[in-house]
């Protein structure tokens, strides 16, 4: 069994010529955990390294466990950061399990794309993020990172 010290990037095996080294699936790009003992927060915000006008089609998944809520977590955010007008298109929010519910994809004050989610309880909650960039010409294989995180009591934009 391999032990990989950093987030793992898995390319497409050269199916599309010229993209052999691309990382279309990026596992473990970021870990977040919180033990909010006073339980004042319900929303989590994460800033990505994707600019609003970067022309990238991105999917980010969070997988983990909401201990206090006794619920597993598997949810995803998808969007297209359109290079022409800098708006976000085809935004989608999905969750397979009830531990965390994606709340929004929004543009931060510094023009980076941010994602947010709500959870019933942030007392011992933890998630690991994966990213997928499978679309040719629209960010295929470009590294996705999470550069900042925050927990808030309200659902509005944080970054």
């Amino acid at each position: 069994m391999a032990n990989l010290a950093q987030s793992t990037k898995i390319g497409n095996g050269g199916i599309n010529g010229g993209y052999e080294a691309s990382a279309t699936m990026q596992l473990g790009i970021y870990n977040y955990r919180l033990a909010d003992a006073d339980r004042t927060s319900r929303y989590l915000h994460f800033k990505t390294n994707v600019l609003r006008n970067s022309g990238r089609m991105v999917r980010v998944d969070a997988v983990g466990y909401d201990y206090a809520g006794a619920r597993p977590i598997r949810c995803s955010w998808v969007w297209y950061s359109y290079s022409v007008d800098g708006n976000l298109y085809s935004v989608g929010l999905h969750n397979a399990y009830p531990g965390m519910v994606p709340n929004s994809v929004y543009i931060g004050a510094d023009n980076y794309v941010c994602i947010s989610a709500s959870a019933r309880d942030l007392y011992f909650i933890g998630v690991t993020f994966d990213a997928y960039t499978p679309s040719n010409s629209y960010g295929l294989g470009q590294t996705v990172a999470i550069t900042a995180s925050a927990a808030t009591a309200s659902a509005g934009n944080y970054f």
Partner: protein
Amino acid sequence: MKVFPSNGGYLSQYVAGHCQTQDGTATKVHIKLNLPKTSLYSAMVMIEAVGFAYGSAQAIRSSWCFYQYLSTLYSVNVNNVYPGMNAEAVYYSTDNFVCLRGGLSGYFSGFVLNAYVNAGDGAGIPISVQAQAWNTNAGNFY
């Protein structure tokens, strides 16, 4: 494959285990993990089974989550995304290890287990399968 996120040492574990059977009579699968029931060991764990139930032509994505703390299981839950298998229970074996039970939808079922130990206590501990059984026992087999 163990993946350490770039910002920390809390890992995701892909293919922490692999289970499969060709048994056409089995309706349940029991999986004994390497996690002991002991006051010296605690871990918040989410485990997913991802696979294929050939006999029912269904996909499998099921999860068990639990907190092994002192000698008790807390915050236990089971969930299923696809109908190929039903995650049913988490229990202690008679020799004091954490076990999972799933209900099968068809013969030739197979799946890998991915483990996520990223919520707090026990973050990053390695998860493995030490035994598996395919039978009709709807209770605790181990």
